[in-house]
């Protein structure tokens, strides 16, 4: 046991139980090798059904046009862009956990990073559908790419935040996918090497790219992970910043605010962690992974939720303050009538947002609540409802009454096909997640093994031995090292 790996025994173990390396493999790979449960089939088929409904809704939109939705003359962005921003926000937790927490040396990320990254990738896939189908003539979607063309060449507008978004989201998706897959390669090799059927050995052999575990390869793998983490950290912040630019660079009251980038990023982390919680609370139970995703992990994520939720709360209050302090009548009308006045047409959505995002997460100041699974699950759903309201509030309450009263919209409510599209992305998300949970190692096996001997429950005794040494002995040993 190296002294450099010393970790205080006061810290909660990250891996419970008396585990060996072989048991770690066994516990994590077992769900892949076992037949899926009845519950898995039920969940999977419901997801596929939702997905099919979504495909039909999109089919109607593509065939008959955007008129299938209830967008009107001022509400040009409705449920579609609300859902886009919502999904992109959710897609921020995975890369945050794996990249930023890697740079900050947070050991607890190892238990949840794999599933969180998977969730990120699926969420970004769902998000991408909305702006693409919002274009209406979806078969011309490739016009957003800058390539020499026969129309001039007429280039895309590089000064437009909407184009920055194209670059940001596609880069984010690509980099997240690469980061995720490069971490999966060694774990696929683990599954491959204990496979007992030919087909499984062949498929996981292909997926593992012929990984052997060579020291040189691990050395390069470590370097790769570290640099990808370093790149993803500013990337994850840039993506939601650029999404917020879609609004902030406009001149619409309620959108035209400089607070948007940090406020959107905090909100994204907030909703992303909430989605991770919703999934992890279920996954750890269904696949018996309680020893790896411990209550300590859940608590750590709840702390992030209360922090980011409070940041978002401060942003809301700052916006209200500025709506009054600027003495701009349009700003004042948007913030103090369209949003904060409960009995205005959309006042319910603003107060729904406030209740779900700002008030309810404050419950996590209490340790007992942070460590309660039921409360965690309930809160995580509530937070995601609140974050959906936030995007709805930002988009719809700013658009429905703008500068020209004669253009003020009639009340906007979605058609069944708009809702169906949204439900369809839920179907896509959960179909992917069910397949992931069944066929992929849901926890990063190699990373758990890496932290096992410092933070495993049964190895904590070694730390006690170190703690009993006198300080000078300890210092001497470290220097000799």
């Amino acid at each position, binding site marked *: 046991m*190296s002294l450099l*790996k010393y970790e205080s025994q006061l810290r909660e173990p990250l891996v419970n139980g008396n585990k*060996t*390396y*072989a048991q770690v*493999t066994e516990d994590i790979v077992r769900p892949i090798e076992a037949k899926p449960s009845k519950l898995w089939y039920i969940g999977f088929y419901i997801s596929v059904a939702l997905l099919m409904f979504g495909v039909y809704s999109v089919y109607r939109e593509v065939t008959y046009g955007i008129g299938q939705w209830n967008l009107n003359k001022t509400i040009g962005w409705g449920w579609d862009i609300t859902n886009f921003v919502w999904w992109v926000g959710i897609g921020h937790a995975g890369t945050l956990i794996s990249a930023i927490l890697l740079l900050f040396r947070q050991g607890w990320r190892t238990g949840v990073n794999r599933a969180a990254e998977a969730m990120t990738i699926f969420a970004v896939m769902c998000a991408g559908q909305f702006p693409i189908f919002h274009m209406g003539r979806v078969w011309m979607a490739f016009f957003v790419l*800058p390539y020499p063309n026969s129309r*001039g*060449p*007429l*280039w895309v*507008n*590089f*000064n437009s935040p909407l184009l*920055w978004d194209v*670059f*940001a989201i596609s*880069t984010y998706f*690509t*980099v997240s996918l*690469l980061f995720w897959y*490069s971490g999966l*390669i*060694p774990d696929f090799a*683990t599954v*491959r*090497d*204990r496979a007992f059927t030919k087909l499984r050995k062949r498929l996981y052999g*292909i*997926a593992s*790219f*012929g*990984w*052997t*575990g*060579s*020291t*040189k*390869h*691990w*050395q*390069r*793998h*470590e*370097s*790769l992970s*570290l*640099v990808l983490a370093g*790149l*993803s950290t*500013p*990337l994850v912040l840039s993506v939601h910043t*650029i999404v917020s*630019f879609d609004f902030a660079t406009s001149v619409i009251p309620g959108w035209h605010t400089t607070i948007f980038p940090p406020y959107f990023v905090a909100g994204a982390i907030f909703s992303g962690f909430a989605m991770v919680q919703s999934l992890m609370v279920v996954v750890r139970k269904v696949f018996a992974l309680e020893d790896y995703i411990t209550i300590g992990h859940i608590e750590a994520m709840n702390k992030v939720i209360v922090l980011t939720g409070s940041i978002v709360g401060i942003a809301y209050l700052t916006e209200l303050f500025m709506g009054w302090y600027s003495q701009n009548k349009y700003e004042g009308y948007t913030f103090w009538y369209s949003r904060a006045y409960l009995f205005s047409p959309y006042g319910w959505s603003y107060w729904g947002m406030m209740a779900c995002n700002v008030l309810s997460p404050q419950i996590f100041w209490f340790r007992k609540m942070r460590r309660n699974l039921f409360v965690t699950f309930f809160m995580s759903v509530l937070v995601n409802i609140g974050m959906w309201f936030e995007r709805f509030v930002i988009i719809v309450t700013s658009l429905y009454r703008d500068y020209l009263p004669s253009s003020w919209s009639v009340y906007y409510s979605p058609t069944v096909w708009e809702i169906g599209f949204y439900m369809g992305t839920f179907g896509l998300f959960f179909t992917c997640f069910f397949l992931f949970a069944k066929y992929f190692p849901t926890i990063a*096996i*190699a990373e758990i*093994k890496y932290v096992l*001997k410092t933070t495993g429950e049964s190895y904590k005794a070694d730390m006690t031995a170190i703690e009993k040494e006198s300080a000078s002995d300890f210092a001497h040993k470290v220097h*000799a*090292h």
Partner: protein
Amino acid sequence: MAKKKFVVGCFDDENVLFPAVKKVRTAGYKIHDVYTPYPVHGLDKALGLRETSLHTAGFIYGITGTTTAISAISWIFTKDWPLNIGGKPHFALPAWVPIMFELTVLFAAVGMVLTFCYLCQLAPFVKKHHFHARATDDLFVMAIECTDKTNVDDLQAFLSNAGAVETNVQVAETGWWLGRYDKDEMPFENKEVATA
């Protein structure tokens, strides 16, 4: 590729592995590789492997991305098709920062992953010799390359003595080996083996 003969020793504890690596190397044997289930820190140093330059490649890919973005956009917006956007300058550098940043990250990430796969010869359908199926599970597998002079039985006994739980002899085609042992990194001459 030529077939080679290897003596393989399997260890089940990294605290036994590190002294064993030191012993084997001091005895003058050439370690072909050590296969581990997770990245064992310090093992590359103990084996005398040089530091990887992958991050340098990543930096070069990154600045390639930045350069691509700035040169492409400035050519398009100042030479090829200058758009008049509210009379603002054609060379609108601040507005291009987001795309320059995104392309930097994209080029660096994609380039590094491809380079990583190339250097480690990782790709779907690649077949490699695996010295032990449990090297990805719970064993640390040391493969030592034999020469004409190697006494296989002696070496096996030597490995068992050093703490190997299992030893055997394998003839294998190993593919290319792009890792370079660095003479300067010999850890046992003047410094202690890092028992990480």
